[in-house]
């Protein structure tokens, strides 16, 4: 088994010189180390996949290589020459093109216009549209898709797969030698994936180096020759595909020491009645949702990015209501058509993006906490300095309960740390007396110290009989906090797992390899 990290440059060239190489790349963001001394080589004619959990550093690495970020340390080499980029356009011009999950296309413009935006060929400022269209056809031909896509079609009329092909064509037109794709198969059907695979073959034959980030292990195994595993910003291992099994790969991705201790899980005696029951609920995005939630328990919801977890939360809370099926809250059948209704029925939704959806940043902490209470009461309800109506002491009490560290509740929330901001959001829902809390990524972007505090808080909520639905991409958090785990995949519930399930089991179910027995076998082999 050949392992790239054992290699050292010149004398070990297996096929050819690496087309692109990164050495000792590090990158920090406030409070978090995104990449830590990562070195990798990418060879022409090879497909190299980068895998890892959410937050492992994959996107950061790709953004550095494509010129969107600058590294704090380390160098990038193209064909042996050191390069650096101040702007993504520079990287593009040097031959490194990246295709993001959300395409960089203008839907209301034609294919040809999109390909040549910013570098249209013109004489005296006048476009030669016919020539542009012809050039576009040439570009499309390079990819072999000239029969599928016409240069004069509007991008909005193309299917997602065709748009992706267009993005690739655009990259080729920049004479890309390295092509990076972020989750290329996420939005494609099986036949479209086959098309993409054929395309990638063509590109390989041209001597391009292809890099892609993916969570879908099936595709990783179908398409890639080399697979690199990143974890916590560090390079774990680069393996050759034929020498590794999916279960082994998953093990490489997730095996880690817990960085802090979670509060103890609940016990069955502590769980109360079913407070939320969903039967066969579906809407335009998620389908056939069935589950129960009891008082006092934490139901973790795991799954890969795009598996439908946030949509589940939004559906429960009335942001994107269910169109069919049944929902029962506190034993009563209800249809939650808008957030107001959810709040009145004592639901709370701590959203993933607290900045854009959870807080009013220029308002004081006090007003943020009391917003839910005020919204459901009379408009002319009076306010006194410390609280609403008779509950003057509510804000300081809640502030203490969730441990908000601030000198004054009149400070605008935009000036608080991430951890404190999240606590304000929590306090907001406590204020409205919610007894079913939905958390979407409760500790995302929060420093380690505050994380523990929030976890303790969540468990404290359950001790009071509150039911918690917790969506998280961080497996340690799921395992550490959940009394049960719902696993979602492809906008459905893939299955349910008990407390303290292994990370492998969860990941396998989430990636569509739900054959637990198989996983056990291969893991045992590894250990021997």
């Amino acid at each position, binding site marked *: 088994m050949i392992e790239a990290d054992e290699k050292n440059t010149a004398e070990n060239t297996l096929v050819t010189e690496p087309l692109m190489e990164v050495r000792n790349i590090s990158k920090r963001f406030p409070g978090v180390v995104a990449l830590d001394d990562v070195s990798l080589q990418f060879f022409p004619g090879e497909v190299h996949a980068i895998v890892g959990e959410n937050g492992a550093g994959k996107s950061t690495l790709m953004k550095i290589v494509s010129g969107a970020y600058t590294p704090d340390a380390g160098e990038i080499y193209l064909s042996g020459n050191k390069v650096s980029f101040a702007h993504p356009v520079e990287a593009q011009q040097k031959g490194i093109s990246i295709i993001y999950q959300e395409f960089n296309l203008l839907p209301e413009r034609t294919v040809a216009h999109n390909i040549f935006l910013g570098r*249209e060929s*013109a004489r005296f400022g006048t476009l030669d549209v016919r020539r542009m269209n012809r050039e576009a056809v040439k570009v499309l031909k390079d990819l072999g898709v000239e*029969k599928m896509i016409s240069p004069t079609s509007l991008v909005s009329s193309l299917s997602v797969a065709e748009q992706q092909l267009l993005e690739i064509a655009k990259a080729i037109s920049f004479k890309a030698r390295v092509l990076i794709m972020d989750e290329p198969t996420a939005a494609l059907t099986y036949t479209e994936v086959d098309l993409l695979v054929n395309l990638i073959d063509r590109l390989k034959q041209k001597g391009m180096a292809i890099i892609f980030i993916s969570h879908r292990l099936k595709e990783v195994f179908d398409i890639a020759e080399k697979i690199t595993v990143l974890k916590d910003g560090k390079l774990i291992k680069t393996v050759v595909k034929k020498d590794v099994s999916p279960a082994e790969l998953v093990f490489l991705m997730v095996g880690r020491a817990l960085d802090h201790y979670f509060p103890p899980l609940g016990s069955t005696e502590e769980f109360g009645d079913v407070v939320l029951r969903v039967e066969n609920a579906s809407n335009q995005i998620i389908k056939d949702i069935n589950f129960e939630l009891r008082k006092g328990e934490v139901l973790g919801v795991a799954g890969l990015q795009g598996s439908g977890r946030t949509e589940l939360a939004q559906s429960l809370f009335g942001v994107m209501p269910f169109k069919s099926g049944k929902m029962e809250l506190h034993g009563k059948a209800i249809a939650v058509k808008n957030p107001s209704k959810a709040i009145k029925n004592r639901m709370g939704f701590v959203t993933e993006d607290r900045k854009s959806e959870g807080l009013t940043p220029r308002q004081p902490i006090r007003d943020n906490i009391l917003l839910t209470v005020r919204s459901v009461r009379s408009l002319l309800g009076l306010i006194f300095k410390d609280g609403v109506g008779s509950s003057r002491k509510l804000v300081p009490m809640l502030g203490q309960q969730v441990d908000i560290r601030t000198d004054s509740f009149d400070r605008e929330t935009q000036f608080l740390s991430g951890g404190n901001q999240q606590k304000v959001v929590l306090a907001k829902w406590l204020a409205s007396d919610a007894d079913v809390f939905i958390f979407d990524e409760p500790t995302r972007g929060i420093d380690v110290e505050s994380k523990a505090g929030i976890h303790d808080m969540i468990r404290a909520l359950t001790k009071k009989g509150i039911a918690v639905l917790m969506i998280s991409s961080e497996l340690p958090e799921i395992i550490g906090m959940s009394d049960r785990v719902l696993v979602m995949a492809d906008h459905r519930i893939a299955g349910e797992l008990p407390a303290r399930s292994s990370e492998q089991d969860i990941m396998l179910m989430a990636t569509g390899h739900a054959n637990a027995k198989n996983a056990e076998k291969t893991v045992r082999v590894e250990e021997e």
Partner: protein
Amino acid sequence: MTTITASDSWFKRTARSIHIPPVYFFLIVTFLVSGLLDQFYSDGQIFSNPAIMLNIIVRSVALGIVAVGQTLVILGASIDLSVAFTISITAVMSSYLMQGETARVPMAILAVFGIGLLIGLSNGLTITKLKVNPFIATLGMSLIIKGIINATFSNYTGSVPESFEFFGYGTIGPIPVSIFILLLVYLAGWFLLARTKFGAHLYGVGGNSEIARLSGVRTDRVLIGAHIICSMTAVLSGFFLVSLMRSGAPWVGPNGLYDLESIATTVIGGTALSGGKGGVWGTLAGVLIFGILDTTFNQLGVNPYLKMILRGAIIVLAVASYTIRSKKEAA
């Protein structure tokens, strides 16, 4: 929309690519409704009179010309509320400078275009470099222009020489010059948008300025250019009006509602307020719609104030017919 493949015949491709904006349907409806009103209230006198029909188009010229500029600016996801007073200052300054003498015409034209350039440049810079909201920037500018006009002129000033009146009254054969000019301006606008780098970049800036920027488009310059062109079209409209009226007065612009109506005609023509989508031919239909309505109201002797009420309502409803479909909350 079905995909046109490169192997389709040239004819098929051309036919499909000429998108006829849906607003032309509204134009036909408006035409028919006005025709009906005409029948009921004035025994069909309006539509059977070719002079009046021609008049509709001539009335549309002033609005039509400035609407092209507004369309460009809105395509760039901006807006220009200073066009009305730009038209006013054009009318006043040109007749003042010309003083009825043909010899002074070229100088006056240059000077006034210069003023338009300045206005457009200021608008563009305020919006791109000072990052002021386009509504506020251009509304503030309109106040400034208004102040300057009122400070210097209080009534009709100077006059336009007869030779200049050719613009407004002249004909080439049976067709008024102004209609040619209108068509020319629209063709120029179309050409600018469809066949120049500037146009392609403008659509990019309006559609998604971040993507445009990442592709190397000089977004600030493009937007400033759009604002300058818009002010210039306002100047051209002003020239047309002053040649019709033979002398310029300060209230010409705002009275004609050129700011609001240029926006409304652009929007009903299918150009999105958020930018990046649309074009001038739709605007032309919108202009004709307003022209028909205006003439019909006039001929039917509708009270001018009632007309004002209707125009306000039509403008709001016209924009609403497009925004009602959007999912985001407006502010």
